[in-house]
């Protein structure tokens, strides 16, 4: 048996790696295709799709598509808008949702279970069904700006941020994680003299790195990929995010090279954010010794 096991084991390991490589390829090839294509003129791009050349930076390679993309649309503004809206929403929702979840997990109050199940029930409502009622709501909210008190939030940043500051999925993630934490930690902190907010900020938050990272990634992706809502509420270019900006490249005849250049550009922040969080995630697990 001892003689058979190693080869058998090695075969199994090799197969496993092969499978992982294949799966990895399925995910990585579209990205390679996107980046490679962004460097080619339209004619060659379309011709190359028929062969392996689609994934190779060969032929007439240049950054022309990027210059063209910047000329056609205010790419910088769109990326800025998206990052601003996404950043504020992610930070805000991590804070609000984790506090809400803290209350659901650790405080005792009447109707707690009912309220929590109502919140979780909203998970099954698709956004499309509530988009129009929500539009009507935000359209009649007051705002104070340079022109004094005005009505309606259309064409603004807050209309893209506030409705998404709290969501059922994020609350649910935090509640699940918090419920698994040892209750005695909270009790020890309370006896040590901590107020509820101190229990939250000094004891619970520092040991909840993994769930914060997970929630941040999910929220970031959801917000960065927003399309329908910003399309509905931002008529002026000034507040539009990246996904709505994609429209600029599909007018009259589609410039595929520019589309690819634009997509490559707007994918960069996602990758950067992901890598950053992955590090934070691992660091937090290593430092607390609590496994997620």
């Amino acid at each position, binding site marked *: 048996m001892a003689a058979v096991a190693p080869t058998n084991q090695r075969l199994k390991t090799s197969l496993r790696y092969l499978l992982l490589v294949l799966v990895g390829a399925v995910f990585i090839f579209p990205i390679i295709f996107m980046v490679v294509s962004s460097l080619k003129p339209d004619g060659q791009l379309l011709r190359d799709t028929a062969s392996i050349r689609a994934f190779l930076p060969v032929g007439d390679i240049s950054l022309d598509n990027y210059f063209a993309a910047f000329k056609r649309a205010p790419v910088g503004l769109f990326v800025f808008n998206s990052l601003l809206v996404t950043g504020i929403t992610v930070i805000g929702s991590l804070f609000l949702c984790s506090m809400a979840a803290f209350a659901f997990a650790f405080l005792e109050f009447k109707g707690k279970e009912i309220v929590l199940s109502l919140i979780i029930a909203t998970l099954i409502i698709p956004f499309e069904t509530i988009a129009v009622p929500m539009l009507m709501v935000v359209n009649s909210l007051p705002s104070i700006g340079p022109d004094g008190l005005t009505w309606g939030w259309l064409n603004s940043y807050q209309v893209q941020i506030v409705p998404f500051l709290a969501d059922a999925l994020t609350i649910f993630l935090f509640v699940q994680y918090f419920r698994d934490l040892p209750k005695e930690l909270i009790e020890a902190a309370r*006896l040590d003299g901590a107020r509820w907010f101190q229990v939250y900020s000094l004891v619970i938050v520092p040991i909840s790195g993994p769930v914060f990272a997970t929630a941040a990634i999910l929220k970031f992706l959801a917000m960065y990929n927003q399309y329908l809502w910003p399309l509905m509420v931002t008529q002026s270019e000034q507040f539009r995010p990246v996904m709505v900006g994609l429209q600029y490249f599909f007018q009259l005849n589609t410039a595929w090279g520019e589309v690819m250049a634009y997509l490559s550009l707007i994918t960069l922040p996602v990758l950067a954010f992901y890598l950053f969080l992955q590090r934070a995630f691992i660091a937090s697990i290593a430092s607390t010794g609590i496994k997620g």
Partner: protein
Amino acid sequence: MAGLSLSNLKKTYGKVEVIKDVDLEIGHGEFVVFVGPSGCGKSTLLRMIAGLEDITGGELRIGDKIVNQVQPRDRGVAMVFQSYALYPHMTVYDNVGFGLRLNKTPKDVRDRKIREAAQILQMEHLLDRKPAQLSGGQRQRVAIGRAIVRQPEVFLFDEPLSNLDAALRMDMRMEISKLHQELGATMIYVTHDQVEAMTLADKIVVLNAGVVQQVGSPLELYNRPANLFVAGFIGSPKMNMVEVSVETAGANAIDISGPAIGRLSLATEASGIVLGDKMTLGIRPHDFQQVPEGPFKGTVTLVEHLGNETMVSLKLANGEAMIAALDGDTTCAIGETVSLDFNRDKVHLFDSGGQRRG
């Protein structure tokens, strides 16, 4: 100074009454141990004192203040948990100093107190470690350090040693006892380990099903258990119980008889015992001697030599089981018949309601 006074304390979960009308006085500086079978409400009572469970009814005073509605942090209590409950992201130093940091103790004072506590508990070399890098015993020290550093009036311990191995448990038990003498604070300690209870306590509170069965010093409980429950719970091995009925009841002596023992005469001052009463006679295993001809005769079913004594299990003629702690050099074999007598001054008599009568 902080003694505690519990009057009519009640706790219900929904319809289930977990703590029923507990009355208890705890003097300042006393070491009180709650014992009782699993699920009897020891932890619940302790947590009510800590403020971690709401009090359903009655009154709890710490010092001379009613604290029913007072937040845990304002009760002047510190608690050591069975699971230690150390903050995993903080070093030992920060764990111990957390309470001081919260009450805004100046940094230099805080540092001094943390180091003092570390010195008392001999864990100065551990201050920079995280809890994950400590052994069970070291974690328990940190948990105790965290409690003493705030100089609370009352310490609460909920089975603090039950996750430790036997040797460490004994060490820590002695340290806690020493700590109690040094600090002079009131300590309430929950355990279901009899040895811990007997060795640590000034006063033991025996609980069963949320009701206080008896309060007293370890020896009081051992020598004069108030009822059958306490008699059976305190002492190891368990007290032997024999059903008897009263044959004659005199002024200071009664005659009893039962299937296990035949007829016996006992001196007792108990009044109100009348002819025909059903009673329970309790005899501790250590109050037996082997004799050529005694009231108890039985077949040996098990012999355990412990060196200093020998535990002999018997089966009496009527089928009842008994256990006797005999001399260390007792030689008897399984299946042999032995005859036992007992120390007549140390018997326990309980009436049919289970209450002590003499």
